[in-house]
């Protein structure tokens, strides 16, 4: 296959359709990152299927020159599951948003993850409903003043990573729309993962929720507000790389390096930690004042792959019972003859 594979470039994954996101939208950066990563993966273009639900992010398939299916609100995980089960050889990607994946499609999202279907999920999180013009979303912070909440929202937000980990997702990661290199690195890892790969991409909606992530993206602020986690590396952050994360019992602590505290006292990140509770602790950091927001791969473990289990079960039964025979099927059970 590889021998005859064309040398793809970004251009090969662009369509002739006019991109209809607002100027300045973070989605452009994500589209660009994906179009840069796909050519590198060594997969024939016709094997890619990009599936989406409804929302700004879900227009994504129209701009990818692959097979694409823009489905209905919240149901992309189920459509993608059907595709992947029926054709495990396809490389199925999903583009979704915080409302699509966590509100109307929350049920499908958690069940896709618990089954570990081989789907790469790109969740564009802008903490707002864009396409319906500015209502608060299930990831909006409490007190969010939006179109439908003039006096502030009341409901507690979901942390997408915590939710995915709670569903025991085998691959959970996060990146940011404007961090192109980081995003591409995370996408490559997601592409290589067998099973569900859940990637939250923090994305700016410059129309309805501009600056939602500016603490994490502005040059002056980002080093103190984010922590880039790397497998096998200690959890160090800060502009001067002078802060770190230590574990104390079941709590994480931010500590300052120096005064007897060295990197040896810090957590060394293990993305393959078998217990999802470890990654869950990391995911809670951004909900805790004083803690940085983790970026990178929180969890990447092996687990039984759903579509493979289905194929294996079919093969085992066929081997045991022999290939299906229509005559036997029709004549199963007690029969009698009328002459």
């Amino acid at each position, binding site marked *: 296959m590889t021998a005859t594979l064309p040398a793809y470039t970004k251009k090969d994954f662009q369509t002739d359709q006019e991109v209809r996101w607002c100027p300045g939208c973070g989605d452009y950066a994500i589209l660009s990152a994906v179009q840069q990563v796909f050519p590198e993966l060594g997969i024939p273009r016709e*094997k890619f299927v990009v599936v989406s639900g409804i929302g700004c992010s879900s227009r994504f398939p129209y701009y990818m020159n692959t097979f694409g299916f823009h489905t*209905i609100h919240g149901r992309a995980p189920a459509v993608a599951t059907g*595709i992947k089960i029926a054709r495990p050889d396809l490389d199925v990607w999903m583009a979704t948003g915080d409302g699509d994946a966590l509100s109307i499609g929350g049920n499908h999202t958690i069940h896709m993850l618990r089954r570990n279907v081989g789907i790469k999920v790109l969740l564009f999180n802008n903490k707002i409903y864009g396409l319906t013009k500015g209502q608060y979303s299930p990831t909006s912070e409490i007190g969010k003043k939006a179109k439908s909440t003039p006096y502030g929202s009341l409901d507690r937000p979901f942390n997408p990573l915590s939710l995915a980990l709670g569903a025991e997702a085998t691959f959970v990661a996060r990146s940011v729309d404007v961090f192109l290199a980081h995003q591409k690195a995370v996408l490559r890892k997601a592409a290589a993962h067998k099973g569900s790969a859940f990637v939250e991409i923090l994305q700016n909606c410059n129309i309805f929720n501009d600056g939602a992530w500016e603490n994490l993206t502005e040059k002056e602020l980002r080093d103190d507000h984010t922590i880039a986690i790397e497998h096998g590396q200690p959890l160090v952050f800060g502009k001067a790389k002078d802060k770190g994360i230590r574990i104390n019992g079941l709590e994480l602590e931010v500590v300052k390096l120096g005064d007897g505290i060295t990197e040896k006292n810090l957590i060394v990140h293990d993305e393959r930690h078998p217990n999802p509770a470890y990654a869950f602790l990391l995911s809670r950091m951004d909900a805790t004042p004083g803690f940085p927001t983790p970026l990178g791969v929180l969890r990447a473990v092996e687990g039984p792959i759903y579509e493979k289990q289905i194929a294996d079960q079919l093969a085992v039964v066929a081997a045991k019972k022999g290939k*299906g025979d229509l005559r036997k099927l029709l004549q199963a059970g007690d029969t009698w003859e009328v002459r």
Partner: protein
Amino acid sequence: MATETTAAPPRRRETLDSAVIRFAGDSGDGMQITGSQFTNTTALFGNDLATFPDFPAEIRAPAGTLPGVSGFQIHFGAKDIFTPGDAVDVLIAMNPAALKMNLADLKKGGILVVNVDNFKETDLKKAQVAVSPLEDRSLEGYRLFPVELTKLTRAALKDLGLDAKNMDRCKNFFALGMCYWLYNRTLDATHRWLDLKFGSKPVLAEANKLAMKAGYAFCDATEAFQVSYEVPPAKLAPGVYRNLSGNTALAMGFVVAAQKAGLRLYQGSYPITPASDILHELSMYKEFGVITFQAEDEIAAITSAIGAAYAGSLAITTTSGPGMALKTEAIGLATMVELPLVVIDIQRGGPSTGLPTKTEQADLFQALFGRNSEAPVPVIAASSPGDCFWVALEASRIALKYMVPVIVLSDGYLANGAEPWRIPELSELPEIPVKFRTEPEGFRPYEREPHTLARPWAVPGTPGLEHRIGGLEKQDVTGNVNYEPLNHERMVQLRAQKVAGIVQDVPDVVPAGDADGDLLIVGWGSTYGAITAALRTQRVTGHRIGHVHLRHLNPLPANLGEVLKRYKRVLVPELNLGQLVWLLRARYLVDAISYPKVQGKPFMQAELEAKIQSLRAH
């Protein structure tokens, strides 16, 4: 059995051309198994038959209470049998609640077997009966056989070392043995079934065999039973037969359809009564490569099926009314993206949760119209349990040929009811040709085949056919997103024309009975048997009656309008408040008469006969 029974031959045998038995007891009494076993034996004997399992939605309502009563009725005969029978010849009542709930259907002078061991003070109280019917002379009009079923069963099993609970669970087989004696049937088929069922627990197989034998011997030995009956085999068309229920028939039909189309069968489903058995059945057919996906909900069931269809499978989703409601938006998506899909609705009483285990035909409007905007969908209805098999093939063929979602309507009565079914030869099965687009040159996702208006099926993985589909309106031919007013109107019309054009595959209707005359009965779905039976008795001199039974409800057969006009009056019996009649009136401007019934039960033959007679009189 002949070799096992050494007792004297029955005192007197009467030959009947048909009989109706109802087994009624508590949900935990095994009445469904008892009925199924009698059915199987009767089928193997060669009778024509129809069955009506009637059970509560509760798995185990408090034992002995009225809501816990479960029944199984079988009508079998030496002649054609079309319905499970209006009135019952033999009623087996395992407790006072079962007696109270079912006595009204027993014919005057009918045989009534009651388990007197269950007529104690507490049993009567649970059934809300003040005075035992065994003592208040209320059963005088019947041939009452009070039997100590529990005691006699225990006595028969005393040497097996079972506890009382396990012994008592065999008492339904004592009753079954009695019925086998009463109708001169052998115990062989049930013996075979017990060996299969209790393979790992031979003592339980033995216990049930002993109980059944004891029931048989009891009738033989008791002077009380002076008569036994013979119902000779029916003259069915030659062939090999099996007994078949509607849900099994559907499952089998889709396996066959996928094989004939050379596709993988994919079923997305969420458990729901009375459709779950299709999922159970299909999950056993892995040697045919069938994928069954028990989804997290009804919506995932259908949308995963849409995904599988997109990826080139024969995709189906199975449900009942409330599940259909949840699938609505996805059926619209399948209509828009023009992918083949079969949606099976096993109708039950509604609205909402309604009567989960009872039958109804009230989802016709939902199937025809239950979507936002203009979203026409072909609708096909099965008319008998065996017909479900052929409907599965027909629905698959249409879905694949026209690239459309197709709705199949069955109902609880067809799903659980059974009839003898002639097994077709493989050569009788229709071919289902499927063509995937593979040629990249000139590929346009919404360019239509002129004859069917079907768009090409271009599955992912095919080089050079990368394209995008979705729920947004499509530009004609290119399939690109398009919001232009005239394009939208054209696409709405094209989708409607495509479905309307399926009429070229819909055979013209040919009325049963008289081809013109005074009255045309138009039915659809599971009322076929009752209407057919009523028609046979009501075609009298001077009153010409025909019967048209619609399999295709959208599009309707091309000649239907003309046929309707051949009769002075049109009668439409339906298990709803008049949905088909509404459609016929709107579509053909015919002053059709509605005959609705919504009791969670099928029509009785007598009800239809009375309605026909009343029309004749006026």
